[in-house]
């Protein structure tokens, strides 16, 4: 488990770093797909099979594709060899983000008590349980999410198509 975690973590970090560092946008997107799959692996490690599947279905199968589409539709076919990689004042951004990690997240995490024992060893959550929970106590939330998705879908269609009407 330990090994698997470190491998996955390494892949995830690598993917993420590559995603923000690579000049070629398509490559960047592919590396973020790598990051997504590593995260799916981590989910499996954490016994959240279903979430892993959803991760693959949604992120790799849909969001990634969507990004690729967006790239294909916006820049030239081969991807945009951007003149400059980083935006104006990038140093500020880097500095601030790093500061956030160091000043905010790391101290908070290190201060907290480390938990290692999992209650999940004697309980294997099945998809059925998840579904029942989703449909019974959280039915309203599911409805809201469904509405949101529909609204998002329509909004996306409108946003993407209305401009073409110009």
């Amino acid at each position: 488990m330990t090994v698997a975690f470190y491998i996955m973590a390494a892949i995830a970090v690598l993917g993420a770093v590559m995603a923000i560092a690579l000049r070629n946008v398509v490559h960047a997107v592919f590396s973020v797909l790598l990051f997504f799959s590593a995260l799916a692996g981590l989910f499996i490690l954490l016994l959240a099979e279903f979430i892993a599947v959803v991760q693959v279905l949604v992120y790799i199968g849909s969001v990634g594709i969507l990004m690729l589409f967006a790239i294909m539709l916006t820049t030239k076919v081969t991807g945009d060899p951007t003149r400059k990689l980083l935006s104006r004042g990038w140093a500020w951004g880097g500095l601030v983000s790093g500061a956030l990690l160091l000043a905010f997240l790391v101290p908070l995490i290190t201060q907290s008590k480390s938990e290692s024992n999992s209650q999940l060893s004697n309980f294997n959550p099945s998809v059925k349980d998840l579904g029942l929970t989703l449909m019974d106590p959280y039915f309203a939330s599911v409805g809201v999410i469904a509405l949101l998705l529909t609204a998002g879908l329509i909004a996306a269609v409108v946003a993407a198509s209305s401009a073409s009407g110009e």
Partner: protein
Amino acid sequence: MNLFNFTDSVGWLMWVPICPLIAGVFLALLKPSGRVSAFVAIAALAVSLILSLKAFAMTWGHEAQIETHNFTWMHIGGVDLEFGMVLNALTGSMLAMVSLIGLLIFIYSWSYMSHDDRMGRFFCYLSIFMVGMLGLVVANSLLLFFMFWEIVGLASYLLIGFWFQKPSAAAAAKKAFITTRIGDLGFLIGLLWAFKATGTFLLFDNGSGILETTQIAALAASENVMFGMNTAGAIALFLFIGAIGKSGQLPLHVWLPDAMEGPTPVSALIHAATMVAAGVFLVARAFPLFIADLAMLEVVAWFGAFTTLFAALVAVGQYDIKRILAYSTVSQLGLMMVGLGAGGLALKEGGISIGMFHLLTHAFFKALLFLGAGSIIHGCNDEQDVRLMGGVFSKMKISSIAYLAGTIALCAFPFTSGYFSKDQILLSAWTASGPIFWISAIASLLTAFYMTRQCCYVFLGKYRGKGHVHESSPIMTVPLVILAVFAVALGYVSEHFYHILDYLSGVHVHQHESIVVIISWIIALGGIGLGLLVYARAKLGIDETDPVKKVFPVPYRWLENRLYADEFYEATAFKLWDVLAILITVLEAIMNQLVDFVTVVVRNIGSFFLNTIDKRVIDEVSFDGTCSRIYNSSQINKLIQNGFLQGYLRLLTGGAVLIGILLIVFTR
């Protein structure tokens, strides 16, 4: 209020006006064809007639009995405004007369109007009229009486102006409405005063009604309220003004001859038999008030006397067959007033019967005369000028005989109905006041004279008009015959004659004076004789000068021009009215100029504020100055708000970092 209770209360009397109302609404809303309309209206009125006859039967023999049925119309501030119906002899007889004559005239109109494509509308108006008239008769509240009175006025307006395409008809309708309205305002004041003085509008209300003894006594107790009269007299005076307007008495008589512009059945029904008699009926109804101040009775009698003489004189100078009858009506109405006034002076309560009896007989023979005239006009191809008629008798036997029956009744030929009623009036006048008697007698003589003149013009000689003369249809002649029978035969109830008088007034009436009887014989026969003497042999026609005119040219011209009454009003009242209106219009124009001036001033003040104060002070110093200062200070903010997305994000993150640091610092 139980409308369907026909036995123990008189609430069912309400159905008498409601029946034609239903017919009228039905005709107005559904607009059926002319034939159906006529049928509906006649059927409704027939029901009313049956109910009226029931009412008549209930009162006959119970003359002193007064039955009422009252209900609340409005409730205000703890006070009830009540309406009601009353059933006494006055109601019963009048109802019977009105609905009977009404029905006959409805039937007559069916034929008379059959060529008019607005026949349905005509019957609708007629039904509305019957609503008003019957309602007025049964009303137990002065206010309700007034309301129906106005409805009658409306119906009269609509019917006079029935052929509104004719400008003269429209003008006559308006004139009729407005002239009677002048009288109505008097009536209104009278009833308001009555309300103020008694606190009720009810005529009879178990002893507390206006006409009942306690109230009358209270009203009569106050002395010298107005012109030396007591309150009852004052109220009566104003009510009498209403009666003057409606019954075409002297100052306000001008509308009635003009009203002949309407269809002939209308003239017969409204402007001869019923509506114009409503004024007389009002006086009869409110008679206790009149009796309470004898001065008021004299006023009534004098007004009546002047009117009857005036109208009889004018009638002599007219050529239009309907106009002659119209002036005759005015004259007879005056005579009824004389009857009421003088009768009141002579017989106290019995005065009612004197006037009312003539009203009833007059209704029959005058309706007959109008309908006959209508038939003759119809037969003479819608010609109304008597000079263009002549020789009608031989062509239209039935109509002519009926017409002649009416004529002799009107002339008070002995033992006809007119004779008895007129005789009673002259008798009362003889008792009451000499001058009034003589004026009435002269007027009666003139009546006989002008009726004879008219008959000579119409029936004798050769036909002088265009086309052929033809007899009218049976539907028209049958009512004529029935009315003729009534006109003559009402006289043959002579043994019941005093019964009728007793019945009408509720008190025992008996008067006899041989001289008067002789005088009235002389008047009737003398008038007819004089007329025949002058006109029977004379050459008559449109080109010929009237025989009387040959003798008295100047006075006759005055008569021809109706004694210049219209011209007089034109020159006085109308002018005054116009001058007032012009004066106020001018004043208003001046005020409008002032308004414009004010507007200009305000606008100038406004522009002063705009140009001087706003621009200088507000804009340059305070508001704009502040704004530009704020604008300048925003240059720094502008650096941050640069629209660069990541810039915002970075600031956001910086903020988070700051919070983190603060958290760390403060949690330690």
